[in-house]
């Protein structure tokens, strides 16, 4: 088969990176929340707000850096609502998560309609930062080591998370907040505060992921553009069992599936996008069927913490 040409492989790996980075960021963010015992169904909404804010600010200011900063802030703003309602007040995490996603969909679509629906402005492709030597490797080089800075930052975040989980008090505190909040409370750490921080970080990560989709991935903002990425992020986090590297692997695998179409088109094979888009979800279901009850989640996931209550 002449399928595996260099062009095909390059576009496949490139596609995996471009489609995988938002998943990676969302998955890492959700991992933080889940570790601390909060099931964050509003992830999709946080990404969408991030995508909108990122695009808007990048377009208005002309600075992609500012765009990413505001994308992250946008995600955090949604997360702050989540933290207030679910962590502080203990409202149902699923109901509020759905509400935030719906609200984000509605608001961004409205704003987009008012501002951009006639002009549909585009952002220029972001400058890439080729890494000397590495960018010269065939296939991998142009696809991975000649990317915008944000890609490197996202991958760096994986290792930051690993460091935080393994080597800081924060990592232990998050773990305890999810597995045995009472023990954390007894150690004099505020459980509510720990969980709030986790949820806010989730918003930050998801916002960055959304901003990546609009600024780097598409160059435009389109309503509903996150297209279930947030939900895939939730699943990635659940399957990764608290290991950031697994999220990275899963995100790239999912990204490859999502981008397979383009790569196949490069190779001259015509398969509808939808067939390819089914792959990641089918894969998740397969994993769940095989892994069954071993898919592990923090013990206190989804339940709000009240001191003294059992």
């Amino acid at each position: 088969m002449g399928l595996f040409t260099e062009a095909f492989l390059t576009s496949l790996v490139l596609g995996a990176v471009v489609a995988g980075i938002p998943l990676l960021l969302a998955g890492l963010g959700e991992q933080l929340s889940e570790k601390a015992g909060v099931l964050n169904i509003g992830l999709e909404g946080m990404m969408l707000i991030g995508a909108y804010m990122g695009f808007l600010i990048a377009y208005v200011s002309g600075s992609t850096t500012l765009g990413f900063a505001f994308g992250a802030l946008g995600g955090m703003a949604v997360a702050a609502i989540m933290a207030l309602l679910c962590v502080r007040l203990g409202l149902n995490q699923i109901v509020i998560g759905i509400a935030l996603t719906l609200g984000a969909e509605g608001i961004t679509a409205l704003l987009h309609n008012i501002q951009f629906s006639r002009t549909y402005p585009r952002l220029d492709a972001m400058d890439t930062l080729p890494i000397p030597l590495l960018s010269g490797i065939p296939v991998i080089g142009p696809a991975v080591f000649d990317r915008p800075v944000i890609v490197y930052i996202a991958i760096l975040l994986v290792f930051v998370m690993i460091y935080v989980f393994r080597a800081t008090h924060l990592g232990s505190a998050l773990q305890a907040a999810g597995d045995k909040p009472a023990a954390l409370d007894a150690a004099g750490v505020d459980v509510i505060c720990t969980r709030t921080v986790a949820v806010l970080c989730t918003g930050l990560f998801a916002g960055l992921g959304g901003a990546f989709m609009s600024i780097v991935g598409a160059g435009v903002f389109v309503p509903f553009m996150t297209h279930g990425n947030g939900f895939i992020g939730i699943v990635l986090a659940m399957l990764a069992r608290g290991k950031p590297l697994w999220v990275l692997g899963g995100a790239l695998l999912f990204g490859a599936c999502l981008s397979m179409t383009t790569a196949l088109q490069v190779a001259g094979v015509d398969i509808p996008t939808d067939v390819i888009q089914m792959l990641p979800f089918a894969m998740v279901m397969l994993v769940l069927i095989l892994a069954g009850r071993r898919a592990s989640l923090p013990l206190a996931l989804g339940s709000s913490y009240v001191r003294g209550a059992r």
Partner: protein
Amino acid sequence: MVGSSASPVAAQGPVVSLRQVTKRFPGVVANDHVTIDLWPGEVHVLLGENGAGKSTLVGMLSGLQKPDEGEILIDGSAIDIASPRQALDLGIGTVFQHSMLVPSLTLVDNFTLGGPWWKRPDREGVAARMREQASSIGIRIDPYALAGSLSLGEQQQVEIVRALMRGSRCLILDEATAMLTPRDAEQLGELMRRLVARGLAVVFITHKLNEALAYGDRISVLRLGKNAGAMEPQVLKSADTSAAMAEVVRMMFGTNAFGEAESGAREMRAVGGRPVLAVDGLAVDDGSVPLSGISFTVAAGEILGLAGIDGNGQKQLAEALAGQRPIRSGSLKLKGVSLEKAGVGERRSHGLRYVTDDRLGEGTVGTFPVSTNLLLKQIGDRPFWKSGVEQPAAIADNARRYVGEFDVRTPSIETPVAKLSGGNIQKVLLARELSGAAEAVIFAKPTYGLDVQNIRSSRRRIREAAEAGRAVLLISTDLEEILELADRIAVMSQGRIVGTVDNDADARRKIGELMSGMTV
């Protein structure tokens, strides 16, 4: 055994003293003017049945609860213990029955929990101190093991090490041996002796008499929230084991114990006849307490009491008999009909009833009205449902009838059952299980957590059930209750029935011995 006089600090005053401490909860006086001194260099055993007020006492010492009256003295001066943290700062460390370690963290991470977030925990340093502290009290721990991979006994040792590293001078072990294997329990006992030898004050809460006598320097007995007696170190050391045991049993259960006046010594009724409920060689799988070789029979009109310390398989047995949990082997016969493979519904329709002790957890659906809860095990049956459609009139009639008959105090039959008091929820359960063609009834801790009046009425119901010719299996951790009601008494220990005795004048002593692990 290490004598307390050998400890270097025995001459000082008590580390912690409770003076006339009273704590009330709605409807209950959990602690009623309790006075106890905790001396350095002593294992102070706190004995008492369930509901005697031990856990409330621990709650107040560890800063979870505050006394309503009386005071707690630390080194002779009165102090309010406002929070668990303050209790720790005052040098009072508590090891609870359920581990307070995060299972998914290593021990050293559990120990460093609570440091500044951005910093690296000083794992090497803490691990070294852990090893040092552990070896100083003669145990070994691996600081880098996951807490969840340790046995419960090991986790408790770890928590003791943590309490010592925090500078605890008074260590409370709350029902520490209740969930341990005998070997782990023995090791814990030896550890306690080493701790007091270093001058610590140890409070050991238990209901096992043999452990109390083996490891204790001083014994205080609580009954119904009050001081029921104490044994000074001199007395305890001089008395021989069986005499001490007899004395402690007398203090715990009393000769003029509560409730005796009502029943008198239970007259031996002639309950012969064919067994209604017959269990033979029953074995049940379970993660913590598997059952094996359970055999007994209960005749019509007979009450078989099942005594034993909580957590020795009583719950598993009740669930297996009721059909909520599969039976691995053995037979269960009700009036000669084999039921070991039948489901809950089929067993019920044959007349096997189960009054659970988990009244709101599984016995009822709290948000549903009283009327529905009365029929929870008959959903779909005529005349309350016809072709699957509910008949509100029949359901309401049924509810009104049983609310009246069993004196359930409820604003209306439509009131959600969770809004009722514990005693009234129990009446709903009794009404449901004793109604209709009941042949054999299993009662699990039927008076647990109830007030005096409801205890009386529940016990009357049990007696009436037997007098009406039903076979009754009464599972209780309240020995007094069993002595008051039962005809014969079986004692359960570690998933087996270790002996069965007639409820005669000598029963109390024999049961005490069976429960404390001696052979009759």
